[in-house]
């Protein structure tokens, strides 16, 4: 049953050299993504979620660079490909959706021109076929009168409609994986749910795997199969969504879950995690979460915990390792 995962990230490290030394934005993360699976990536701002996404698709902005590790797409390394070879993977095999639909579309080209150019770049079809395909895609993402709207410019669409167009664009060459970087953050709350459901539906229909980057646990709970919780450039906990939400192992995840308001909850106040995430240039030695952790031990100040299996999830915490060992693993 060990089939090759669609995407496999192995010990990935991303650095930003600055005048005051090298900042480690991503410090050794590993995860797999199966075909058609939805992986949620959550964390606070600056935890490295977006950087992970951009590193996978090979669009890190210089001076940012991959300093180590591997990214494998269906078992083939893609992190060391040439610009030209990587360009052919982008859009064709890995698509990406950005946060702000208002600025993701080129204002001077009709959406038809943008979709058709993308299709023609990746697929061996005629202009006519590309056009038909564009119409079909727009219909699929719920744009009414799609054939007419092909000639409309982005400013003639509302924010939610533009994000639908963006989704159509990201999916127009049938990629196997879509990285959605906070696809709903810039949208109206009432539209957010629609867009998430649309993304979920379209990806399920096309068998596309999704790496859904967000800080909205609600979205993750509704959409994702598995979730990775990131903290200070590392994965704190990763596992099936149900387990992570219902039975979080890592103290950080426990804190995160406590901070989600619920309608049926009986707490008067939401719990909060004291302090804030360390800046990249002042990550403490040992476990990065140690200044904020209520269960902190001596070891946490000395050594970095690695991910250990804990039930169906894996968590990077010495406390979890201890409990698991005591339980005889």
């Amino acid at each position, binding site marked *: 049953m060990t089939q090759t995962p669609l995407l496999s990230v192995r010990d990935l490290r991303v650095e930003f050299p600055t005048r005051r030394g090298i900042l480690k934005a991503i410090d050794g993360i590993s995860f797999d993504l199966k075909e058609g699976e939805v992986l949620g990536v959550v964390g606070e701002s600056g935890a490295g979620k977006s950087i992970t996404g951009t590193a996978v698709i090979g669009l890190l902005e210089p001076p940012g660079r991959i300093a180590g590790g591997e990214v494998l797409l269906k078992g083939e390394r893609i992190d060391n490909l040439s610009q030209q070879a990587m*360009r052919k993977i*982008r859009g*064709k095999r890995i698509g990406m959706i950005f*946060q702000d639909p208002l600025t993701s579309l*080129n204002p001077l080209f009709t959406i038809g021109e943008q979709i058709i150019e993308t299709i023609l*770049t990746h697929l061996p079809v005629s202009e006519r076929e590309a056009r038909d395909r564009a119409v079909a895609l727009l219909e699929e993402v719920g744009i009414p009168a799609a054939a007419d709207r092909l000639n409309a410019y982005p*400013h*003639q669409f509302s924010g939610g409609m533009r994000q639908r167009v963006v989704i159509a664009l990201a999916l127009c060459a049938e990629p196997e994986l879509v990285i959605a970087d906070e696809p709903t953050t810039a949208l109206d709350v009432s539209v957010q749910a629609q867009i998430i459901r649309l993304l979920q539906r379209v990806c399920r229909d096309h068998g596309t795997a999704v790496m859904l980057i967000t800080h909205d646990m609600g979205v993750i709970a509704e959409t994702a199969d598995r979730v990775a919780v990131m903290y200070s450039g590392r994965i704190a906990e990763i596992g099936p969504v149900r387990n992570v939400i219902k039975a979080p192992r890592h103290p950080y995840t426990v804190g995160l879950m406590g901070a989600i308001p619920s309608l049926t909850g009986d707490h008067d106040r939401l719990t909060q995690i004291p302090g804030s995430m360390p800046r990249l240039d002042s990550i403490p030695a040992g476990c990065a979460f140690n200044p904020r952790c209520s269960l902190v031990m001596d070891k946490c100040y000395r050594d970095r915990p690695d991910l250990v299996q804990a039930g169906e999830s894996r968590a990077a915490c010495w406390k979890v390792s201890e409990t698991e060992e005591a339980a005889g693993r």
Partner: protein
Amino acid sequence: MLAFSIRRLLQAILVMLVVALISFTLFRFVGDPVNQMVGVETTPEQREALRERLGLNDPIMTQFGRFIVKAAQFDFGTSYQFRQPVSDLIGKRLPATLELSLVSAIFALLVGIPMGVYTGLHRDSVLSKLFLSISLIGISLPTFFIGILLIFLFSVTLQWLPSFGRGDTVAIGWWTTGLLTVSGLKALVLPSITLGLFQMTLIMRLVRSEMLEVIRTDYIKFARARGLRQRSINFRHALKNTLVPVITITGLQVGSIIAFAIITETVFQWPGMGLLFLQSVQNVDIPIMAAYLMLIAFLFVVINLIVDLLYFVVDPRLRADRAAL
């Protein structure tokens, strides 16, 4: 769109009226035109007769009205110095100046835009730094000095290109062109580089800074994430977004190229309007100066109109009558 065009046209007419007033004032109040026209021995009676004949005793508004009506028919009177109708003189010189300006504008655009795109995309390459240094020279050296330098290098030392004049010209109707003969084309090279260098560096720097801004936008990132070809991203998606400011500046610069061809024409003894204007200043030939002023103002107004209309072509967001659905 129609309302906009009409509004623009009315504005243009207003601008032209104001300029006409200024040229008219120049005509009337910088010295007595009769003094310029007659000899020393003319009697006061003859002078008075001439004044009457020229209509100089009519009320000012009548005279201004007459000036405008005549100007609209390209009649700016007779040059004091050449004793010929001003419109003939200018008509003869206009092709030389327009050809020179056109060629330098094309040079500025064809060299400036690619250099701007290149320096914007490859910020740290050696070539970019070289281009930027050259552009600094283009911006800081005065035009006449560049002209003299080019003459010294290419005409005196290397003897490749002529140092003055238009070379052989071919007449097409009233228009004489130097674009169809080898010597005419050769004669164009140095003056148009001299005239266009400043504009070229300006356009290059403008395109560069706009490119730097545009390639950081989300839609360029998204275009990359879709795996579009680098060429298409740079020259279609990014460049088009830099065009609105470039069109604005280029439009204004084409106007100034024509207006300030004076210096280049002097350095290269180019038989254009600028040279004519300079001679007329030396001889206080007011009809020519007034006509020149009107002509330049007219060209500026026309160019601005074209620029405004080009915005509509480039940027769909401005086509207001196809409002958001």
